[in-house]
């Protein structure tokens, strides 16, 4: 488990809103922008769909960092979803920090469908931040609990 930092690659999870950030990621791809491949993307209908459970479960299942991304305030497909996200995220981030999760591992960003460049930049920077931080240790340590080998830790739950 404790691979040396050299051959360890950060593994990130991005919960991207279907209408803006996912399209932004898509644009980054179709525009052939280069960014690190470390982010596993889970598409959600709206950034406000992301329950705090999802963030915690992702960290527990082996993610080293979690990104929640949605439309810019005012642009939500559902009019107000991201306003709620904005309030909740601030609370949950402070709470997780208080409970011992490094605040840099959990981030939120507004990325519109037109902002392929911003997506590229956010992911690139996030990966670098996590690379510096090293692996997240928020994982089962209890000896009797089955821990899958690092390369199998891809199941991050399905969101619908």
């Amino acid at each position: 488990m404790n691979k040396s930092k050299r051959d360890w690659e950060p593994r990130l999870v991005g919960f991207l809103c279907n209408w803006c950030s996912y399209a932004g990621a898509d644009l980054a791809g179709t525009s052939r922008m280069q960014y690190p491949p470390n982010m596993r993307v889970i598409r959600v209908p709206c950034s406000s769909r992301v329950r705090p459970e999802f963030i915690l479960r992702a960290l527990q299942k082996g993610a080293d960092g979690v990104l929640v991304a949605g439309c810019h305030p005012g642009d939500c497909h559902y009019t107000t979803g991201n306003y709620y996200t904005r309030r909740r995220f601030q609370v949950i981030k402070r709470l997780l920090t208080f409970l011992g999760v490094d605040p840099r591992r959990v981030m939120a960003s507004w990325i519109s469908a037109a902002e392929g460049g911003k997506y590229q930049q956010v992911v690139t920077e996030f990966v670098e931040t996590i690379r510096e931080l090293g692996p997240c240790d928020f994982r089962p340590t209890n000896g009797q609990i089955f821990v899958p080998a690092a390369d199998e830790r891809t199941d991050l739950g399905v969101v619908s």
Partner: protein
Amino acid sequence: MTELWRIKKCDLPAWLNIWREEYELWGARPEGPVMRYGPVADATELVLQVRTRDSAKNMFFPATETMFSFRHDEQGLELNQQLPELKARLLVGLPSCDLQALLVMDNVFGGGGHADPYYSGRRQYTVVVGVACEPGEFFFCQDFGFGPDTPTGADLFLWDDGSNWLAQAFSEAGARLLQAGDWEKVQATVPNRSGPGGWVSADSVARLRERFDDPRWERLGERCLGCGACAYVCPTCHCFDIDDMPHGLEGGERYRRWDTCAFAGFTAAAGHNPRPDQTGRIRQRVMHKLVYGDFRSDRSLCVGCGRCVAACPAGIDIRAIAREAVREKKEVKAGA
């Protein structure tokens, strides 16, 4: 008069430490703000004659344990048992009620024609040293036919004799422990204090059985909030749930975890719950503890340790329920 070994209290930790090479030492020690049983590195950390917040059942029947892991691949499905590591453990300081509880649990998990390999695996290699306790609040052991000096269930039992312990071995493993020390043998009377009691009697148990439909259960049901504090600190509550935890799409584990009849979902199956309200659920717990007992051994599932009484956030007192059962039925306003 019985032949007992006299051990100076101050010599006890050094003597127990001799066995650290062979056994993992377990006993009561503080965990944060509460006393619990757990492993210790040195016998000086052990606290004797103290009431732990929960019981020692965690040691044999952990609150959560993986039973087996599984993996799907081209060849099909593969199951791998996750049996506990067989470690020799020396558990020091169980009071008589916890010893009795251990006997109950041995029957539950070892009996009935199917031994539970997880429990038995841990239990088999554990040597238990019992210690006479100082009965405190909420104890009612005498109602179950034993007191603070009853050694039943221990491999070795220590009675308090001022600055000394008086020890007697009840098994080969217990006798072997004693050989490591250069102890004085004395002829002495084994203490036999009686413990607190007077709540649960054959009569109250019989009355409880008769009064399954008594409206007083409803009064309890509205007070019982449906948490599991009583069951989880209980040394004999052994209900568990089995669930699967997938790891990825190919594999995962099946684990069990404690469960209790006080929880609303305990008996809920698709669309049908035989115990739909808290009245039925608290009644089930009281009945199972005091009336039904364990069908394998006819032992009572309550040993009078009083932990549930101390733990209940609603102040529900199983002793009082038993005592109340023998009082004449009070007129209760219908439907109220």
